[in-house]
């Protein structure tokens, strides 16, 4: 029971990270380093609360969140792929835009730069209490989880299937390995890249919606507080493979939970919170070190640029 309880709260913590990690992964596989997950998730969190407040429907709130983040992804992809802007600079710009734009709307529309706290907010569909009691441990971990958390868990095998078992997934990875060669084989590279950015937007949107809608039911400026980048760290640590990335996201989520615990005891939590970034950097370094040792000239550089 104790373990189930712990897993349950760990899952709540992990699911936004997992979704952010998958959002980074899907563009990484098309050879684009996506630093804009943070901003897309933040926009979605804002849209979720704003739409949920006015409509009183959680389905509408989720739809609004996904529409907002996909719109941001469309803007991002349009500028970076369509107009040939630098992917990193445009991504950083999108984050600034999300930060400034949500704050601007808070001040201009809601007259409260501190945040958006509806009195009543519709709850998401959840796994009913006791519905899975026939399953030991896992049942307890999954009960009361939101629909988005379940979607996040399902997204991992779906992502693996998509990348390795569908023509589009092949095309996406081909573009990531060598865009010119893929194009020569009839893959419409720009379209495939755009699609991966849009997918990234949907996944970031789920992350932002989960963050705002699952427990908190409010929006705060910059409330994603670096989760997009922890997701990036997880995708890097997991070498942009779905299962290892999901594992990394889960471990990093635990680090986050541990950091919160430590803070309550006045112990320095900073070093625990540092762990994802250090781990990602070490993993990249070791991977590159092995690659350099194995072959003198690596034909395709890792990581997106």
């Amino acid at each position, binding site marked *: 029971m104790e373990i189930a309880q712990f897993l349950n709260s760990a899952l709540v913590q992990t699911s936004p990270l997992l979704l952010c990690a998958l959002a980074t992964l899907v563009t990484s596989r098309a050879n684009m380093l996506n630093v804009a997950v943070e901003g897309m998730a933040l926009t979605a969190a804002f849209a979720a609360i704003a739409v949920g407040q006015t409509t009183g429907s959680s389905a509408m709130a989720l739809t609004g969140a996904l529409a907002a983040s996909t719109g941001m992804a469309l803007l991002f992809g349009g500028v970076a792929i369509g107009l040939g802007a630098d992917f990193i600079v445009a991504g*950083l*710009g999108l984050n600034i835009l999300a930060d400034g734009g949500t704050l601007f709307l808070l001040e201009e529309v809601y007259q409260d730069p501190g945040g958006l706290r509806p009195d009543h907010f519709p709850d998401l569909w959840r796994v009913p209490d006791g519905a899975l009691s026939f399953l030991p441990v896992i049942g307890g971990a999954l009960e009361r989880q939101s629909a988005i958390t379940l979607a996040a868990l399902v997204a991992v095998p779906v992502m693996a299937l998509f990348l390795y078992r569908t023509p589009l997934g092949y095309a996406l990875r081909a573009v990531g390995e060598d865009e010119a060669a893929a194009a020569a084989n009839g893959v419409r590279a720009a379209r495939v890249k755009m699609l991966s950015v849009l997918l990234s937007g949907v996944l970031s949107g789920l992350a932002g919606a989960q963050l705002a809608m699952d427990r908190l039911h409010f929006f705060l400026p910059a409330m994603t507080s670096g989760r997009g980048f922890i997701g990036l760290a997880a995708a890097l640590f997991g070498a942009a493979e779905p299962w290892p990335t999901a594992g990394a996201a889960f471990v990093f989520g635990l680090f986050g939970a541990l950091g919160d615990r430590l803070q309550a005891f006045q112990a320095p939590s900073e070093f625990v919170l540092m762990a994802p970034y250090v781990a990602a950097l070490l993993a990249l370094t070791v991977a590159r070190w092995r690659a350099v040792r194995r072959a003198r000239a690596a034909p395709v550089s890792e*990581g997106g640029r």
Partner: protein
Amino acid sequence: MRPLVLPPRLAAAVSLLGPAVAVLVGGFVLVLAISDDPLLAYKDLLFANFYSVANFALFVNRTTPLLFIGLSVILSFRAGVFNVGGEGQLYLGAIAATAAGLACARAPQPLGLIAAAAAGAVVGAIYGFIPGQLKVKLGVNEVVSTLMLNFVAMLLTQYLVTHPLRDPTAYGAVSFMLAPSVWLPEIPCLPGATDGALIALALAPLVWLALYRTTWGADLRAAGANPRFAEAVGIDADRRVLEAMALSGAVAGLAGALYVLGIGHRFEQNFSPGFGLIGLTVALLARLNPFGAILTAAFYALVLNGAAYMQIDTDVPRSLVGLLTGFLVLFMTARGRAAAAPA
């Protein structure tokens, strides 16, 4: 649709001015739409910095770190390194200068100040050297490494400022106050404005000279533009890249150090409103030209501070600047056509 063919110089200018002008016009229309007094809003945004000496001093102080970081970005980008680690180097430089300044409180007058500034620069240089070394030796993507190192640096300073360096009598996470003996003096005829601004202004032509009037700079730019060509003609490209990254880190570290020594007089965890990112914007808007960076840094400081005055006097929120900056950075590098990514 065929792309317009422009002379390269003109095309370069258009590609930069285009987004900037579009964003300004868009911002003007937006202010027109939401404000009862759009003229006052724009007047404040652009001119309130010059209403009083105190306002002007704040403007100078705001320009200083932006110019430093802009120059730091120029040094690394010219060497072909996409260094987004300015924020982390800034924070570590600031905390190192704080620690050194607290330790040297009783040192003779200029020595403590020099030691503290040097500590910031050295720590920044080391923090720039690490991603440089990882890139040169192993080919680790510098965007990723500098991004990750930013978070590590900020968590590290957060630990230092909430534990060993924390001033328990002050509210919030701030360090002990530095002794006035290590403060960087103000500009003599401009009370409130830090001398760091003069150092930054002096640094810009130095960076230009180093990049464009020395063999070292020519080699560095060659290494940045085409490392294989540079190696083929006998330039030690790896070495130039490492030097550029260390220097870039040192300048960013110095920015943090001089901020603490000249403006803050103590370390505060959230002292930077994203100087790293804005510095990157400043450098790119200046087309990586050190002299241009003076103008773009000043322009950005003007708008950032002007927005605060605008918020006080009118109904336009200052987050308008964040919104417009987002659009500007998003479109800044757009070239109208899909093309190969720049170095």
